[in-house]
């Protein structure tokens, strides 16, 4: 099953992506919980704004990291996991 890159991710209601100085990293905050994101998840998360579709996010990161060949697949995988965990909605 191929991933539809024309879908646009948005954070689920009540989920907030933000930088935490004390943890020197990005986190995803939600009701009574917090997930510390690794560097690549943080880069992707920073581009989820309800405007960019997945293709646009891939294009943006491809420009920043032209030497990473499987970047598109990595981003698709992040989207799949984030949707399965109900962190994001893809529409």
């Amino acid at each position, binding site marked *: 099953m191929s991933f539809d890159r024309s879908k646009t991710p948005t954070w*689920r*209601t*009540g*989920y*907030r992506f*933000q930088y*935490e*100085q*004390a*943890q020197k990293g990005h*986190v995803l*905050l*939600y*009701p*009574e*919980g*917090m997930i510390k994101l690794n560097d690549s998840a943080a880069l992707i998360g920073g581009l989820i704004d309800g405007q960019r579709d997945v293709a646009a996010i891939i294009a943006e990161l491809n420009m920043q990291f032209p030497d990473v060949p499987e970047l598109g697949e990595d981003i698709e995988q992040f989207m799949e996991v984030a949707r399965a965990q*109900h962190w994001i909605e893809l529409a």
Partner: protein
Amino acid sequence: MLSTGSNLPDSVSDKLPPKPEIGLPLWLLAELTYRCPLQCPYCSNPLDFAEQGKELTTEQWIKVFREAREMGAAQLGFSGGEPLVRQDLAELIAEARKLGFYTNLITSGIGLTEQKISDFKKAGLDHIQISFQASDEQVNNLLAGSKKAFAQKLEMARAVKAHGYPMVLNFVTHRHNIDKIDQIIELCIALEADFVELATCQFYGWAQLNRVGLLPTKEQLVSAERITNEYRAKLEAEGHPCKLIFVTPDYYEERPKACMNGWGSIFLTVTPDGTALPCHGARQMPVQFPNVRDHSMQHIWYDSFGFNRFRGYDWMPEPCRSCDEKEKDFGGCRCQAFMLTGDASNADPVCSKSEHHGVILKAREEAEHATQTIEQLAFRNERNSRLIAKS
């Protein structure tokens, strides 16, 4: 001590793992007040809440939030008592949100109105948790000690979702409502809860006082967990976002819970009068805890006696000291050890290695034969609190 015949106690302490670095106080629980319109007989507030000191002012709370946020606190829970009785709640929410906290309102829903839900949204409130006492009106109202509680909660739960908040519904379960767990889950799904906490009574405060009348039987618990797992599977198959969280009572475990993820590890509670605690049950312990009126949050978290009392492993007597699971469960809950053995350093008696484990076995046995009705429980109200404080 180990039974190796060694007379060198140091040889034991040498084997203790190094004291872990002190973590960040990621979770701040602000118990704004002990005042509450309900009278739940399993309330975790201290029995002598009516005798506690004056509540912190708005300015004092804001100082607490600012200092905790600078130290890395990210989650802030407004709790109580019933936090809605604080007239400055919207102001506190606004300040906390401005500082970057994820703000959680933990409420019974009593005293909530559409206007407040809307005002809090404007102030930046991120999430509302409503607690229910039961899935049917009569039992709920009986437990809450209020005739209108249930209808009000339903109306407010719908309003919370209508105003675009994520919602957690919290049901404290016990022997009088746990058999209806299917109805509880159905109700939560119908109300579009994002998370459902099915929290079997933990025996602190008023719940400890009423333990015989609250602890479910093993059979009740097993059945409730099975039903919850069936609903989980069903929700997952549907791709439904609602998540069910089932909290078992540790009285049916053989190993203790890793309480608060370790003493002074990530949680910091501030009580209505400003006493800072490593967990909201710790007030009853014979330990000197600092007050935010006298000290900075930095001092409280890193340097105070109370917060360092049970950090690391040096304080542990046997059987915890030589136990290879101590880094996993930290010897369990200090409050429970104190309540049930008289010494807060002891192993949590939930552990089958504890010499006091018999009190847990006895409680399980009593659960098989208990006959107490809801009406016979001691309700959490000022009158009972003052009586208990005097006695």
